[in-house]
């Protein structure tokens, strides 16, 4: 494959080419030339309106549930959705069935990565069977290629387990991830607790349920000096707690689901179960605080928290519907729509590249001659309306149908492959 990308504006705050408009030539999966004006008769020419090019995006948190729930999403459909959303690498929550808690499970994922357009980054569970009791074989999974340890939406509620895991991972610099949610606070909660849940008579999940576990985890991180990442935080106080902890020099980081920057709980007034997810969509004022957290540099990364659910799991009474939204295809557009008037495009792209790369300690695919061609092509200024017919996932639980979003992804290039038409 030989690709000639014409007139692309480079978005890479770490590169000297940042914001320059150049042509990029790709041969056999490598960047072979970057210049003002390249011509090559044999290359397939790629040209788009207002074309921007950045390092390939990384998603820190997707829930593909393969094996076990392939009818909701398998690796193939998940990859297609990821590529359409601009991602070349996606971090996988280990809550498949069976859960990914052993070396062989990690290898199952790694073996799917033979020069694919979208690479899967497997996470292993922290505890055996993600039950929160005993440590899984973390080192073995680390050796097999697990990029982090995470019990998925099963928050690590036992502090003793988290202390052991944080301590244990220090010997090989393993990364722990936690979704902090103390379920005992609101065992039956289905949406954000606030004015809206009160008016709907639905059981609420207060932000407090996230904050008290997050606060505990910060203490444990300080106690152990282990490396800990908080995924999908959704509260103003969480942002503040993390800011304070970072000032003290703790080894912590955090991400936010991009959909949570755009959707607030007022949209649940119609009891639309497509909007039921975890953490729940929060109030308007919390959304503002999360955006402030991004502006101030407290939030390290954005993720899709893509969580496919089939129609049978969603088309039911709100209380009975499963949690989760699909967001791989809309992750960037949601973030870009919410943030464009607040921060630079460089900052937004950093949250999908530099942030996740630094947290996961994975290669940074620089845009330079001789480097591996792993990049995303997009237009941050174009509007589009996301429709059911655009969905590449097997599931249709998107909160964005019919909504106008800003930020179109043209496609991705990686491992000598691309999804550009």
């Amino acid at each position, binding site marked *: 494959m030989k690709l000639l990308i014409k007139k692309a504006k480079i978005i890479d705050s770490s590169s000297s080419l940042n914001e320059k408009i150049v042509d990029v030539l790709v041969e056999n999966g490598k960047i072979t030339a970057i210049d003002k004006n390249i011509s090559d008769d044999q290359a397939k020419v790629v040209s788009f309106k207002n074309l921007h090019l950045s390092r390939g995006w990384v998603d820190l948190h997707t829930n593909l549930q393969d094996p076990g729930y392939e009818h909701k999403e398998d690796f193939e459909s998940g990859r297609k959705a990821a590529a359409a959303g601009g991602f070349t690498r996606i971090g996988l929550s280990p809550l498949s069935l069976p859960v990914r808690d052993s070396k062989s499970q990690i290898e199952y994922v790694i073996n799917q990565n033979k020069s694919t357009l979208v690479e899967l980054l497997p996470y292993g569970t922290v505890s055996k069977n993600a039950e929160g009791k005993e440590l899984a074989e973390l080192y073995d999974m680390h050796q097999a290629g697990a990029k982090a340890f995470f019990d998925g939406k099963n928050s690590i509620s036992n502090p003793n387990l988290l202390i052991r895991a944080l301590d244990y991972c220090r010997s090989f610099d393993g990364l722990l991830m936690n979704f902090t949610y103390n379920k005992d606070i609101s065992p*039956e909660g289905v949406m954000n607790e606030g004015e809206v*849940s009160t008016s709907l*008579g*639905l059981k609420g999940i*207060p932000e407090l349920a996230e904050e008290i576990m997050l606060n505990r985890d910060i203490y444990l991180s300080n106690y152990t000096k282990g490396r800990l990442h908080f995924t999908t935080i959704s509260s103003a106080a969480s942002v503040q707690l993390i800011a304070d902890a970072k000032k003290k020099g703790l080894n912590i980081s955090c991400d936010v689901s991009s959909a949570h920057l755009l959707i607030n709980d007022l949209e649940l007034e119609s*009891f639309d179960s497509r909007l039921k997810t975890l953490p729940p969509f929060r109030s308007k004022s919390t959304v503002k605080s999360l955006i402030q957290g991004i502006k101030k540099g407290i939030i390290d990364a954005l993720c899709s928290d893509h969580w496919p659910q089939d129609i049978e799991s969603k*088309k*039911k*009474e709100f209380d009975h519907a499963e949690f989760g939204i699909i967001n791989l295809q809309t992750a960037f557009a949601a973030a870009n729509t919410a943030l464009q008037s607040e921060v630079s495009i460089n900052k937004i792209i950093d949250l999908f590249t530099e942030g996740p790369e630094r947290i996961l300690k994975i290669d940074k695919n620089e845009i330079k001659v001789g480097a591996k061609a792993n990049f995303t092509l997009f237009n941050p200024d174009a509007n589009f309306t996301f429709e059911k017919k655009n969905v590449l996932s097997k599931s249709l639980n998107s909160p964005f149908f019919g909504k106008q979003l800003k930020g179109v992804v043209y496609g991705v290039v990686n491992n000598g492959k691309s999804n550009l038409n």
Partner: protein
Amino acid sequence: MGALSTKHLLGIKQLNQADIELIFSTADNFKEVINRPIKKVPSLRDITIANLFFENSTRTKLSFELAEKRLSADVVNFSAAASSVSKGETLIDTVNNILAMKVDMVVMRHPNPGAPIFLSKHIKANIINAGDGAHEHPTQALLDAYSIREKLGDVKGKKVAIVGDILHSRVALSNIYCLQKLGAEVMVCGPPTLIPKHIQSLGVKVEFSLDKALEWSDICMMLRIQLERQGSDRSVKYFPSLREYHQLYGLTSERLKKVKRSPVIMHPGPINRGVEISSELADSENSIILNQVENGVAIRMAVLYLLASEHENEE
């Protein structure tokens, strides 16, 4: 006669003041009808109504059924505890199966908030919400406001205290919406564990002392303590014992003497005598509890009649 602004009665939230007034004036006529020796009118002949009760109910179901029969509708009843539905069939399938037998209107009680709203997006019949979880119970709120209007002449400007388990109460929420739309002031009173944290955002006063609530109110609406909703296995109970609940929030004549007040007393039933209210007060002159029950039939006839006319207009 006018028409309602909606084809379903999903909640008070979806009604405007004119709708409520129309329901009341229609109920006035039906109240006269049900006090005649011959209580039946042919208004809903050829209309088939299904009463779908996915949660136990005695009086609401009876009240709806009487209202339907007095309007000469054909009535079918379906009762299923939530557990038997969870065996597999979805709500939409269950209801569509019943509608396939040519049913025009559905009266539904369901344990999950929003279930009638969800259903209204997927089926064709008119839906009347007979209570959905802790969300709304619109006909109850309508009959309550109607009963206040009957007793005191007007709802506007009246001070209504709703006392008890506000957290799990669809009656409280619908009453808050309805009474506010009609210009009344609403206070909620009960143990802090049973008052939703954000209830003030609905524009109500919050009071934890029953004495103070009684000093303030013209009407005191006592709610039943729903023992079945006092916490699942997974959570801690909301108060330690009924005895203690009665000490703090039981309405007794001693308490009324102490605060020197005699508000109108209401209760949506069924009453736990000796828990939230003493027998003496439940049967007293100021109690309009049985008027509420009587008005319930008239209000439900009015709602059924108005929605059925909508139905006919469409066809």
